[in-house]
């Protein structure tokens, strides 16, 4: 898309809200109803990838340092990664909290 979804005005909508470009649901922000988000203390991280395996959204990727981290664009805040992490790296915090 030339514009991101939250820049689209009603005039940019195709007739019948059709999608005329190829693409996938990857363009959809699915993380906008999250009330909690995962926060990390990577000093305890084993880089085991268990969180990556269990995330039902498939939104966890390895960052440049090799740690596994959620992409907030898609993360729904379900807390499964935090529950599964064997070393309690991940703590779920309220979205409003710093």
């Amino acid at each position, binding site marked *: 898309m030339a514009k991101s979804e939250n820049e689209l005005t009603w005039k940019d*909508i195709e*007739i*019948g*809200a*059709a999608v005329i470009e190829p693409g996938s649901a990857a363009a959809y922000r699915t993380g*906008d109803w999250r009330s909690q988000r995962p926060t990390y203390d990577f000093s305890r991280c084993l880089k085991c990838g268990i969180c990556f395996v269990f995330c039902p959204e498939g939104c966890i990727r390895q960052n440049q340092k090799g740690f596994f981290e959620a992409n907030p664009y898609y993360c729904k805040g379900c807390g499964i990664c935090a529950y599964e992490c064997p070393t309690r790296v991940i703590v779920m915090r309220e979205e409003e909290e710093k």
Partner: protein
Amino acid sequence: MKGKRHGIEVSIALADAVKLCDADVIAAYPITPQTHIVEHLAELVAEGELDAEYIPVESEHSALSACLGSAAAGARTFTATAGQGLELMHEVLYVASGMRLPIVMAVANRALSAPLSVWGDHSDAMAVRDTGWIQIFTENGQEVVDQIICAFKIAEHHKVLLPVMVHLDGFNLSHVIEPIEMPDQQDVCSFAPHNRSPLTLHPNHPVAMGDFAPPVVFTEAKWAQEQAMLSVKPTIIEVWDEFARKFGRPYKPVECYKCDGAKNLLFTMGSFSETAMTAVDKLRQAGVDIGLVRLRLWRPFPFEEFRAAVKDAETLLVLDRCISSGGPGGPVASELKSALYNLDKKPKVVSFVGGLGGRDITVAGFEKIIVDGLELAEKGQERIFEIVGVRE
């Protein structure tokens, strides 16, 4: 006026009009009082008189769903229904308008159960008034034929691309035999040629239609659709004017009958309007100050034309053939009230509900509505609406 008029059942004439428009796909489920329309279309297709796909389906929900696919592929698509059938289509009605598919549907208006009734009123039409379809009401068989032809041209117009419902009163219109002038095939072809939507399904130009819209774009999508709906009235008027030039029969969004100088106006939609005209004639002769406003275009609602028609009136008597249960009584009356609300000078509105489930309102019935209505306007209406002819 050209051509010869001959006696024909309105449903059959309607089906013949669909044939004149050379529809490509008809998907429909027969339901009283619409049955004769699709039966005749099925015959026309079976006998090779109409080169179209006739899709027999197992319900109205499927009928309109099949129409979605065919219209999305760019085929000229027709269906017809009534009453409960229209309600069974309800969710698909939103899909058709949201996807901007130019489907044409005839609705032989019928009451909604329970108690079971196959007879006519406007409950079905009113229940779907917010579904994003253009809605046109007809008064007689000739108008049914003419409006079906106009509906294809309107729906497929590049400035419109919205589905259109043509309403005809169940039985009162669908089953009567009237003298009707069928337009010439060549004239219809040149007036309403197939107009392909700029956005249709095609393997060479893949598009995805009816997609998922998360909260971040749904409002924009709906507003785009609403802007389309709000801007179609000039095109509808243009099509009607062109029809008048070609076929000699003019149509307007709001039509006035003996309104000039009238302080009191009666408001009707559909086939009752013709009976109401006779009542207005009689009362006028008896010296009663009364005119008649008939609405042809229900969606989009022609606010300017309506306000202009009633601007000098002191009293507006409105007949609804539907009850908005537990609400304002007549849905049309409440809509008219809201159309007038912001005006400084506005007529008093007296709301009547009658003609439900096939109950006839005769000329004498309309005379009584007018006389009672003027009295109520004078002394003030206590109830939200008056029910016509109910046995106490």
